[in-house]
């Protein structure tokens, strides 16, 4: 019917419409068709409903809109109106904090996305993040006095590899005994959490030597700290971890699209039977992809430790209680498990998190408890909508069909 090799490629023959294929396969095709429109719709829907929820609880649409304006400003996005590099400017400071949050989420998002591309659901980002944190802290404390560049590299590589090995456990269990990665990574999360708690707890091996009563780790030596590239005296600046995260976006894309490793990962992710038939070692790929996924999450912990936090305090900093590993799941889902998509989704969630906690949280527009939960409401809605994205797509699809019908003169044919 159509000449071969002609582009753009023709639509599938109508006979294929009712054809079988797995749900995942159909989703993949539809997702490709939905492109960037669906994620944007997802976000818009989630925001609209969140605004409605706040309006309902506060009995005022106006309050709700003000609250979301506060989130916007709190994330520092109003900086665009008055750009300045002076961090003493509130908008500039807020923006810098949003960028810090975004750096972490880029990495935890890439972590989840990479495992997804190999057909696995890594819920262990949080645990792998802890492993990265604590190993970076240990290495950052240990070699005090070393010159900065090698010290930073040692701490970064060490923390990343430790997290990769830690995630690799889930990969090995899946490949050898078939234990499902969802179960094992959740278990590994708790193992990591309590191990770290013990390490820095009273009498623990990594507990602060000058403050033996508090569950706090030592401070990372100055030589291992990531330098700020945008900062001011007395203010927390933006460290070069942001560039590490951005570099990882590129690394992710190259790995997936331009290497044999990525080819194997994608083949196994789409169809392990066909991959095995093609001569690909499926089990090896489970282990390797899980380790790489863990490396991304671990690196998130590393830059948080060497950049902003510098020590680990049980119950004091929000680091141990952060949810960045879990938010990475939403980031990856919204970003469609692609490099660029994950980056964009991380920016959105970074702004939302910081903007709600510190913009809305510090103002008194709405109840602070509600304010601090807004990012989770939005996150939850986004995850829900992504799950329902077939529904959204069919809404989108029928809209397009209507347009097609009305714009096309009857009887015209190719």
């Amino acid at each position, binding site marked *: *019917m*159509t000449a*071969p*090799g*002609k*582009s753009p*490629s*023709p*639509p*599938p*023959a*109508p*006979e*294929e*419409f*009712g054809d*079988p*294929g797995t749900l995942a*396969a159909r989703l*993949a*095709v539809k997702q*490709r068709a939905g492109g960037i429109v669906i994620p944007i719709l997802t976000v818009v829907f989630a925001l609209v409903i969140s605004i409605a929820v706040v309006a309902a609880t506060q009995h005022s649409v106006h309050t709700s809109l003000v609250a979301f304006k506060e989130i916007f400003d709190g994330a520092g996005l109003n900086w665009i109106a008055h750009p300045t590099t002076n961090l003493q400017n509130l908008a500039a400071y807020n923006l810098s904090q949003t960028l810090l949050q975004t750096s972490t989420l880029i990495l935890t998002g890439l972590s989840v996305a990479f495992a997804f591309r190999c057909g696995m659901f890594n819920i262990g980002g949080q645990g792998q993040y802890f492993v990265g944190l604590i190993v970076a802290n240990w290495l950052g404390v240990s070699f005090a006095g070393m010159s900065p560049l090698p010290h930073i590299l040692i701490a970064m590589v060490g923390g990343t590899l430790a997290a990769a090995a830690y995630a690799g456990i889930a990969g090995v269990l899946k490949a050898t005994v078939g234990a499902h990665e969802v179960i094992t990574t959740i278990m590994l999360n708790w193992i990591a959490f309590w191990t770290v708690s013990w390490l820095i707890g009273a009498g623990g091996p990594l507990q602060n030597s000058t403050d033996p009563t508090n569950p706090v780790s030592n401070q990372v030596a100055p030589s291992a700290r990531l330098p700020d590239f945008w900062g001011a005296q007395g203010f927390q600046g933006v460290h070069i971890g942001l560039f590490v995260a951005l570099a990882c976006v590129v690394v992710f894309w190259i790995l997936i*699209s*331009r*290497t*044999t*490793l*990525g*080819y*194997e990962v*994608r*083949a196994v992710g*789409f*169809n392990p*039977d*066909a*991959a*095995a*038939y*093609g*001569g690909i*070692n499926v089990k090896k790929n489970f282990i390797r992809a899980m380790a790489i996924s863990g490396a991304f999450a671990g690196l998130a912990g590393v830059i948080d430790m060497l950049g902003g936090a510098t020590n680990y305090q049980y119950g004091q900093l929000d680091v141990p209680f952060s949810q960045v590993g879990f938010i990475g799941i939403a980031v990856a889902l919204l970003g469609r498990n692609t490099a660029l998509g994950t980056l964009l989704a991380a920016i959105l969630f970074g702004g939302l998190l910081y903007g709600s906690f510190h913009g809305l949280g510090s103002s008194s527009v709405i109840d602070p408890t509600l304010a601090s939960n807004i990012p989770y409401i939005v996150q939850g809605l986004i995850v829900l909508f992504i799950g329902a994205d077939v529904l959204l797509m069919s809404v989108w699809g029928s809209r397009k069909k209507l347009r*097609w019908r009305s714009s096309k003169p*009857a009887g015209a*044919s*190719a």
Partner: protein
Amino acid sequence: MADDLVLEMRDIRKEFPGVVANDAVSFDVRRGEVHALLGENGAGKSTLMNILYGLYKPDGGEIRLNGKPVSFSSAREAIEAGIGMVHQHFMLIPVMTVAENIVLGTEPVKGGVLLDEASADRRVTEMARTFNFAVDPDALVEDISVGQQQRVEIMKALYRNADLLILDEPTAVLTPQEASDLFEILRSLQREGLSIIFISHKLNEVLEIADRITVLRRGKTIETVPREGATEASLARAMVGRDVLLRVEKAPATPGDVLLEVRDLHVRDDRDIEKVRGVSLDVRAGEIVGIAGVDGNGQTELIDALAGLRAIESGSVTIAGRELAHSNARHALDAGIGHIPEDRQRRGLVLEFSIAENIALHDYAKPPDARWGWIFPKRMVQRARTLIREFDVRGGGPFTAAGGLSGGNQQKLVAAREISRDPAVLIAAQPTRGLDVGAIEYLHRRLVTERDKGRAILLVSLELDEILSLSDRILVIYEGEIVGEHSGEVSEEQIGLEMLGGREREAA
């Protein structure tokens, strides 16, 4: 009686973006007849039936059912009007019983809410007896054979009082025996006054069961002919639009060295049941060896073992002089195996991958596709372009997802990949399953060409016709053992008998 039309479809038109799927198609069905709708994949058969069944809305034309114009906007309305459709892929719930599946959606109820199982059972049993279905109403659907599941689908339609039954490629999933059982059932339905639309692209079946035959080609009605006077050749010409070679033309084989040597091979399946029980065979360069057998007699496990996809319990496989040391697909590929797998969608292709990526499935890590772990997509695309042209893969370019191609083109894509790797041994498992006449002709010719180039070809097929017309030597497999070998003329009956293990019975 000729005007006792159950169904009339006049000048049906249906367009999809860029494609006219049905172009002024006219089609009618008389009461009590089996009317075959014949055409290649993509000819517009399914579109036409989906319009009739209310799944698509036609862009033009008229449908009359029992003389009254109708326009269904959903399958439910079509069902209520007495149309039943049995799809190629069954829509049954495996964990429920036959009776439950049949009544599902229209369950007889007692007391307003409770399923009246006894009454459901009784009606189903009654129906099974009337039409001689031979299906146990209490059996779970997952436990019965594919042929029986199909009967359940038919009973489902009858239960909803269908008097016009649409069967979409019903024999595609059946063994020859099951197919002839199905034909018996269709004849008994016909005697009860039902009208049947039989969609197919298999010429011999259509000639066996149909009263009239309508041929579609590229969305247009080509002709409607009575069975009398129609021949396979005339129908094939109408379908494809040119003369088709139904018999494979081939010169006598000139076998060379043994390229595939299997000795006393034992293989177990996933449930640890021994499915290959001491198979020994040789395939020489320049010959096609066909393995005939009823489905499930160890063919799948045998092929998987040869391709390194399943552990060998004992015995040896030697490919072009290299023994497969352990089961490893990479090892088998490197030793010179080419493998057209029996399930191209599950195994032969990554449907989400582009054509170019699928062509690279075995050699993605080797030059020219890749070097030191780095992939060169442009080279993959270039190779894909060449192969698309050489193997006449239609429906897309190198960047088209394989899942968007028709079955025939998917199979050509698999064949292109396997043959282009220049394998010493080519295993073709069910190479033409579900394909139309044009694609079958192409693949058969190609296999013979590759044989003449000196490849050793092992053909495994459930279609006896295919085995008989292509093979230089025929082996018959029964319960995991080779029970017969023929190299000269042999009758279909003889092989059919051996396929059912008949030789042992004869000897006894």
